[in-house]
């Protein structure tokens, strides 16, 4: 078991390192001229500078060194917690991220919980209810959830619940009431995704032979679905938990913009607009960390639910 844990942690670290590297490749190697990019972020045009100024700028951004050295420098600094400085605001990236993280964290957490509850309930009902029209509706509904653009749904909800019904404020970070609409908007696509996967998984599980054995014992459909099917059906859904969290974090980019909230998402949108490379890199790495952490937790929980993994089968 210990070997399993160590293995998974090591894997997580490798993935993290690789994510950092890929981000570096995209942001520093992809642009035709990284220098022009960074100067533009500071609202300086490359052509307006003299060769001396250009050389000085290059040195300042560390772009005068060969690529692999640049990479190593950045990596080492990152490992020490120094993620660079924002080109636009000149604030240390770390500070910037730290200040914007809490509201996004809260929002994401609430959204994930809502998504889990919504998705699970929907899937459970879809597999349990036997009245055909209802089942059809419950199965088709998630389709709608994944097809509608998130930002549009946000706008729609604002229009209906804020501007028309006046139940909640439309924008801003004022207390829990302004968290409702953004959280719901964020939760819809992920809960729909979850519902789709879980419904299919439940349906497949309910056709397994051991379900017949269970029913032949005299258990009711509800008991069978709850006690026998759910645990087995949850296994494939656990594996997408990491993806769901990743999708939620990604969703904050548009949702925070639509609802004019401060947070990492909106910071990302602004930084891309301003081509603020260090900040974008910092945010991507942060998301990778979140994703890797969630996956690690899932990997560690998985053997507790599925005894077939890790247990040395002592077949006699």
């Amino acid at each position, binding site marked *: 078991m210990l070997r399993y844990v160590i293995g998974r942690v090591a894997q997580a670290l490798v993935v993290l390192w690789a994510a950092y590297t890929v981000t570096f490749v995209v942001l520093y190697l992809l642009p035709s001229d990284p220098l022009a990019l960074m100067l533009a972020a500071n609202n300086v045009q490359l052509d307006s500078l003299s060769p001396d100024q250009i050389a000085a700028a290059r040195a300042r951004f560390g772009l005068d060194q060969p690529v692999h050295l640049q990479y190593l420098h950045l990596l080492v600094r990152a490992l020490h917690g120094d993620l660079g400085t924002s080109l636009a605001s000149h604030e240390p990236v770390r500070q910037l991220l730290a200040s914007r993280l809490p509201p996004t964290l809260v929002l994401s957490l609430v959204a994930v919980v809502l998504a889990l509850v919504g998705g699970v309930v929907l899937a459970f009902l879809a597999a349990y209810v036997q009245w055909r029209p209802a089942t059809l509706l419950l199965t088709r509904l998630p389709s709608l959830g994944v097809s509608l653009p998130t930002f*549009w749904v946000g706008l729609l909800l604002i229009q209906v619940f804020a501007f028309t019904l006046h139940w909640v404020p439309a924008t801003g970070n004022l207390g829990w009431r302004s968290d409702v609409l953004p959280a719901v908007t964020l939760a819809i696509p992920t809960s729909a995704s979850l519902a789709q996967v879980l419904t299919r998984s439940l349906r497949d599980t309910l056709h397994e032979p051991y379900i017949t054995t269970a029913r032949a014992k005299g258990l009711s459909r509800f008991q069978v679905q709850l006690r026998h099917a759910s645990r087995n059906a949850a296994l494939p859904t656990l594996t997408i938990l990491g993806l769901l969290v990743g999708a939620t974090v990604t969703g904050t980019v548009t949702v925070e913009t639509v609802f004019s909230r401060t947070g990492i998402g909106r910071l990302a949108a602004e930084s*891309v607009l301003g081509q603020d490379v260090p900040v974008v890199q910092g945010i991507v790495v942060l998301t990778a960390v979140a994703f890797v952490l969630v996956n690690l937790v899932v990997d560690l929980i998985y053997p507790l639910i599925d005894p077939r993994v890790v247990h040395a089968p002592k077949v006699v």
Partner: protein
Amino acid sequence: MTLDVSPLARVAPPAAPEAVPAGLLTFGEDEPSPRGQRLRALLRRPGFVLALAFVVLVIVSALVPRFFTTYDPYATAPAARLTPPGAAHWFGTDELGRDLYTRVVFGSTLTIEAALSAIVIALVAGLTLGVVSGFFGGWLDAVLMRVVDVSLAVPGLLMALAVVTALGFGTLPVAIAVGIGIVPGFARTTRAEVLRVKTLPYIEAARAGGATRRRILLRHVLPNAWGPVAVLAVLDFGVAILSVAALSFLGFGAAPPAAEWGTLIARGRDYLVTAPWVSLLPGLFVGLVVLSLNHVARTLEEVR
């Protein structure tokens, strides 16, 4: 020690030729092949036909927008600004008096083009990665899959954002960015399918029959593996449309007055209170397109 069977039994006539199992059609000379049967089953579903027709219509409108509208998407008419939907203007007008429906139709050109390019990029890269990885296996597979796993650690849209930061704004960078974001999922699915088919008995039979690896790959594995991949491609087309729309909503797409769908919705935000249709109708349209694509994909998957 014999299971003594009465002589009568031996004289009994031999069993009739095996009955065709229930569920198979009876044989006639001109019975359609399984492929033909599948097509018929698909066409018998009204939802599928409707969704497919709608998608085709939208794609056609992307190619020849002039067919679908007579207005000019760039013609401003300040007098008619922010009129609600009606007979003259099906979707109403925007803040500069332009007919919204026309803007949506012309916007489809940009958005669909971008989404299609993204899918093509994803297909080419993802299929190659998946097939090479799944078929040849070994260390190549291990390395490639580690790379894909990493790419999954950075969600598609974020990767797209990074690419846009590096490449700049506009329809092409957005297309490339979204395409790169979709590659890992594609590679994964293709690999899984190739692996599944590779272990089927008929592959081994072909091997025992003397088939070379190249023949097995081209004649057996690929034709049997492309099914789920095709379904995923249709689904991802929808995802690509949503991603392109999101990126242009955030301002990274083609500059105004170009009418990408996301940009349309973004501009309408400022008028949400007074003229909600400027944002909401284009968004609804996008939702319908993606919903139809999803329905088509799911039906294709069910009827197999």
